[in-house]
């Protein structure tokens, strides 16, 4: 297609407004009703907003931040900023004020679009530290009536101002949209930083558009597809799914009413393309198991049987593989009775393709969704690599791989098996950090991902873990924490697991229980507790978790390599790991360094063989328990 040469967002927006002006671009559920913004509406509003922004001094290359939940106005603001050639800095809406200081300072952001009073309050708190911020546009005016700061302006007033200016500036703006070039920076993402301070990653228009185009081609996305925007807008994944992909394909993005109504809203809107992080999928599975616990015996038995069939043949049916007629009939029957309704309850009945990204997904979890007939795929990519590096193709999905390299991507491996990527989607540079850019990206365009992996016999890329996390036990057994943790996280009662083992004589775990699932389990057994900390220290709960770990150990024992990585000891944390404590990133990845530091004493006590540890800051003692292990079954199963 000739239009494939268009490689900037403003030009794509104008093209959609012309070619499919009447089709929905963004839908939003507000006050109980879905409202639609067509491509023409979106372009009009973005143009007015761009007028107002340029009147307030936004020029090519200026930095404009967006801070808030997924709302149409957030995306309109991004469109407007790109229209003027400004660079958008998406921020995490649940970040604390102090966390926002670094991005605002280092990017020298001048204009911020903030969703509501909560976000404005955070910005005002750090305003003295960020002198570059000149203008804050807020969307929701609730509670904002008595704010007098000269920097503040409401979105409605700002938009009205833009509409008034539009007549006189229309030509200038059209010219501005035409001046954009693919190599211009479009976004400045501040990466979640599992290891250190957040880095600013500069992504260009062309890089993001190229990757999205390749991905859309692979999965055949068209402008009738529908996707739902619910992940943090500070993350590249949400921007790709909610902005880049629709801009490339011309499909519609839906914004749910609130995070609590997400599932109900999904059932109403029926997304066909769905992006999730492993954490979201784990939460969905936990919800299914919890609701099933409340079902009657007959229903439970039926569900168990149906899942057994699904796990045996579901994935093969989805991949259009060979399945016996009997199995096919059984699957069809259960599809009517169980899988179909279950997909509907999860709001996934119309999904053609679902992606898991952001972190490694447990193969069991992937297969669970696939066996229900949901075409879930694990993606591989990062902020630096334009999100799409490798993705499984329909009909050729292998659960423990991330599929083949996407078109345009070249892969190379170092002697230590670190993955190097060269792709048109690579980031331009780290923001104002030539040194780190040079470290990560070679002169001839190879990027060091920091991930360990290899390509298997079918040409599928397998990711082992982050290079810094891969190690060996003291006896030389190779050890990668992610695999072990993911096996445990598949258990509904376990929300998060942190493995330790590098350079040690055995593997120990810190466990974070899933409060909702475990408290329901406790309720049913009449176990009384006062709160999360109390529940997490009950002996019954330790027994429950020990049982889960023993099951996992039995599985591990079947694998000759992993058998020696069985979990020996564990302790349950009294407090959930959270991003507010700096122990997780905003997308929910573990920050191992911070966790090891915070719980150092407990970890040492586990290895020293103690049965409990005095907590930090005078918190109660944490118990430590041994887990049952199984002798390796090397002889039972050929390696």
């Amino acid at each position, binding site marked *: 297609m000739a239009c494939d040469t268009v490689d900037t967002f403003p030009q794509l927006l104008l093209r959609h407004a012309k070619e499919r002006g009447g089709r929905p671009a963004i839908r939003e559920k507000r*006050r109980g009703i879905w409202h639609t913004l067509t491509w023409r509406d979106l372009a009009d509003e973005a143009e007015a907003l761009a007028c107002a922004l340029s009147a307030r001094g936004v020029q090519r290359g200026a930095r404009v931040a967006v801070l808030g939940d997924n709302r149409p106005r957030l995306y309109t603001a991004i469109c407007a900023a790109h229209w003027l050639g400004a660079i958008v800095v998406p921020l995490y809406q649940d970040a604390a004020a102090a966390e926002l200081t670094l991005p605002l300072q280092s990017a020298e952001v001048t204009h911020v679009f903030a969703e509501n009073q909560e976000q404005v309050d955070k910005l005002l708190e750090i305003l003295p530290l960020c002198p570059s911020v000149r203008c804050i546009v807020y969307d929701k005016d609730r509670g904002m009536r008595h704010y007098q*700061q000269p920097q503040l302006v409401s979105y409605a007033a700002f938009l009205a101002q833009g509409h008034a200016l539009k007549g006189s500036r229309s030509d200038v703006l059209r010219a501005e949209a035409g001046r954009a070039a693919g190599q211009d920076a479009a976004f400045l993402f501040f990466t979640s930083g599992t290891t250190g301070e957040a880095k600013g990653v500069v992504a260009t228009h062309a890089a993001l558009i190229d990757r999205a185009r390749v991905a859309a081609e692979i999965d055949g996305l068209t402008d009738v597809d529908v996707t739902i925007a619910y992940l943090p807008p500070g993350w590249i994944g949400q921007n790709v799914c909610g902005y880049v992909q629709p801009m490339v394909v011309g499909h519609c993005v839906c914004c749910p009413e609130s995070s609590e109504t997400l599932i109900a809203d999904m059932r109403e809107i029926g997304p066909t393309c769905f992006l999730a992080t492993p954490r979201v999928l784990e939460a969905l599975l936990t919800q299914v198991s919890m609701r099933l616990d409340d079902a009657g015996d007959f229903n439970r038995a039926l569900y168990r049987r149906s899942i057994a069939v699904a796990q045996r043949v579901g994935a093969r049916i989805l991949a259009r593989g060979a399945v016996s007629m009997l199995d096919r009939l059984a699957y069809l029957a259960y599809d009517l009775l169980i899988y179909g309704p279950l997909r509907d309850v999860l709001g996934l009945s119309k999904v053609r393709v679902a992606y898991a990204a952001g972190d490694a997904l447990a193969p069991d979890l992937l297969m669970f969704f696939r066996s229900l007939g949901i075409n879930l795929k694990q993606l591989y990519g990062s902020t630096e690599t334009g999100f799409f590096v490798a993705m499984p193709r329909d009909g050729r999905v292998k659960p423990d791989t991330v599929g083949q390299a996407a078109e345009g991507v070249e892969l190379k491996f170092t002697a230590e098996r670190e993955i190097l990527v060269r792709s048109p989607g690579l980031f331009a540079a780290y923001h104002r950090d030539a040194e780190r850019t040079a470290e990560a990206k070679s002169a001839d365009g190879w990027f060091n991902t920091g991930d360990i992996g290899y390509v298997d016999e079918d040409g599928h890329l397998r990711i082992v873990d982050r290079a810094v996390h891969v190690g060996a036990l003291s006896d030389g057994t190779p050890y990668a924490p992610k695999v072990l943790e993911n096996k445990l996280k598949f258990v509904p009662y376990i929300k998060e697991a942190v493995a330790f083992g590098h350079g040690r004589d055995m593997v120990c775990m810190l466990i974070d229980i899933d409060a909702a699932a475990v408290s329901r389990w406790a309720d049913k057994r009449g176990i009384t507790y006062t709160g999360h900390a109390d529940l997490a220290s009950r002996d019954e709960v330790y027994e429950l978790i020990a049982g889960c770990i023993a099951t996992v150990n039995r599985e591990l024992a079947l694998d000759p390599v992993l058998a020696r990585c069985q979990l020996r000891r564990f302790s349950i944390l009294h407090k959930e790991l959270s991003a507010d404590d700096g122990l997780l990133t905003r997308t929910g990845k573990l920050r191992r360094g911070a966790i090891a530091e915070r719980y150092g004493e407990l970890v040492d006590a586990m290895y020293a063989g103690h049965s409990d540890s005095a907590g930090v800051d005078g918190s109660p003692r944490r118990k430590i328990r041994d887990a049952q292990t199984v002798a390796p079954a090397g002889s039972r199963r050929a390696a």
Partner: protein
Amino acid sequence: MIAPVQTPRRAFAIGAPILQLDSISLRFGGVQALTNVSFNVLEHEVRAIIGPNGAGKSSMLNVINGVYVPQEGAISFGGEQLKGMTPTRAAHLGIARTFQNIALFRGMSVLDNIMAGRTLRSRASFLEVALQLPRARREETENREAAEEIIEFLEIEHIRKTPVARLPYGLQKRVELGRALAAEPKVLLLDEPMAGMNIEEKQDMCRFILDVNDHYGTTVVLIEHDMGVVMDLSDRVVVLDYGKKIGDGTPDEVRSNQRVIDAYLGVAH
């Protein structure tokens, strides 16, 4: 140039007295529930009535909204003397309330409960509604919009269609507040809005009460046991003990009032 961060000011400045209670006395047979109690409520303020158990707080609220008719004393609302107040009249005047023990339609959804609070605002006749004539349909739309605004305001979108009986206590309290708000009241009477809640629910409720006062300018009269909550929330506090007013003023004044301290902590006789 950076402007100094200012502390948020009130959107609605506190105005003239909207509600005036003069020498109210209320008896049930031989029991003297209220004795010669006088105080006023200023427009746009948050006014608390506190006191130990049996001090006459709920009776006071019931007098204001016409459930009880006091034997002596006078009530004026918006400068007008009111004789023979009834709950219906109070509602028409713009006084809405919530109850100590939740009084919602338990089988109905949250949305329907809040819509029920709009009944007074409807002008369409029974026949018009039954036949779905234009005016009834228009009003239905308006009422739904108003109800949805409140649902958004109170952040209960996710339970819009849930029957009230299935909700936890804290949320039911919030729905009850929503129903009271649906009448677009000038004065909101809250009878122990935070009773039986945990800390988190209390904090939420406090925020909503302050937001209602700030956003809609609604005057709030509330009864509360939790002293901490009262002191943070209210502009002025009335203290009752055995049906008599023993203190009246800002939270700080009331806190340092010896009679109030005695009533709460007891004194050696």
